[in-house]
């Protein structure tokens, strides 16, 4: 089975890649979209004062 990898996906905010698997006939067998990043805002915002959170989470996406 042949694999085509599109890496990185461009012109958007964030990291992403696409793996396309082709069968023997050259048709698409399956496609996997991968997000190869995590920063952990869910965790590191815990314990921060509420008034600081808007300044922190505005850095989830700056686009």
């Amino acid at each position, binding site marked *: 089975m042949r694999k085509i990898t599109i890496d*990185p996906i*461009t012109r958007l905010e964030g*990291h992403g890649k696409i793996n396309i*698997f082709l069968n023997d006939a050259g048709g698409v067998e399956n496609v996997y979209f991968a997000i190869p990043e995590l920063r*952990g805002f869910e965790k590191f915002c815990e314990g921060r004062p509420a008034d600081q959170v808007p300044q922190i989470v505005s850095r989830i996406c700056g*686009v």
Partner: protein
Amino acid sequence: MSKLKLASYWGSACGGCDVAILDIHEKIVDLANAADIVFWPIAVDFKYSDLEAYEDGYIDVCLFHGAVRNSENEHIAKLLRQKSKVMVAFGACAITGGIPGLANFKKKEDIFARAYFDTPSTQNKGKVLPTTVLQMPEGEIDIPEFYKDVKCLADVIDVEFYMPGCPPTSEQIWNVVLAIVTGQLPPVGSFVGCEDRALCNTCGRTKTDKKVKKFYRPHEILVDPDSCLLEQGLVCMGPVTRAGCGNQCTGANTPCSGCYGPLSGVVDVGAKFIGALASVVDTDSPEEADKIISDVLDPAGTFYRYALPGSLLRRAK
């Protein structure tokens, strides 16, 4: 002489630095006249395979935003280093870890548990965690390794220049672009697009005696628009933060949170700021000083907001 070749890339970042570059607005046309952009994922469709195919040193200047959070960030940083003559650590994340660096207060296992098991919007009954290589029926797929710690760019590659800010202001970016295009960059190792003095030096607020009896959270006080925010009892990082942002926050009655990073020579911004705070507390009694300082909530998260991985502390245990 051939046209300059520029690259811009993000590691662990939010894209705000890229948008700050785009916020030079119509001057982007002048930039395009002076330089070819040969890699810039947010705006231009080049792939990693294109980057790999470039000769070593093909790129004149690379602006690298974002921290080093995972193995992909490190791999591409090293690849860009190999392909670039000049590397600029661009923005707080690349220089000192930035907001993603707050993750160094937490453990990798706890971040994974929160993100993949415990968030209210997550359904993961099988308790599946990401693995770097995954065998699917059609073949193998892979993702980068999430490191134990967030690192700064200079922890993994050599860096020529540092451009601070979260994000750097567009005015400063244009100044630095002009310096690059005209070949007037300062000596290697310099900070660019900023000043080598504290934010307080560029702040127009009236400063008198710093005698603080109580620290306030923003909602607990009506801010006087003319006098020093720190003197009013707001936790303002101005005394230890590099100037160059145009005083955007203090100009809007908001204390400086330190995004332009520590001044030259400061090894640990948190320790430096604790010293600054101690000097403004108005008491001779250690007990009262303790009480006044205890008004400051989450001191570590506040003082190291943008700089934990780049500080002496580096991470919490």
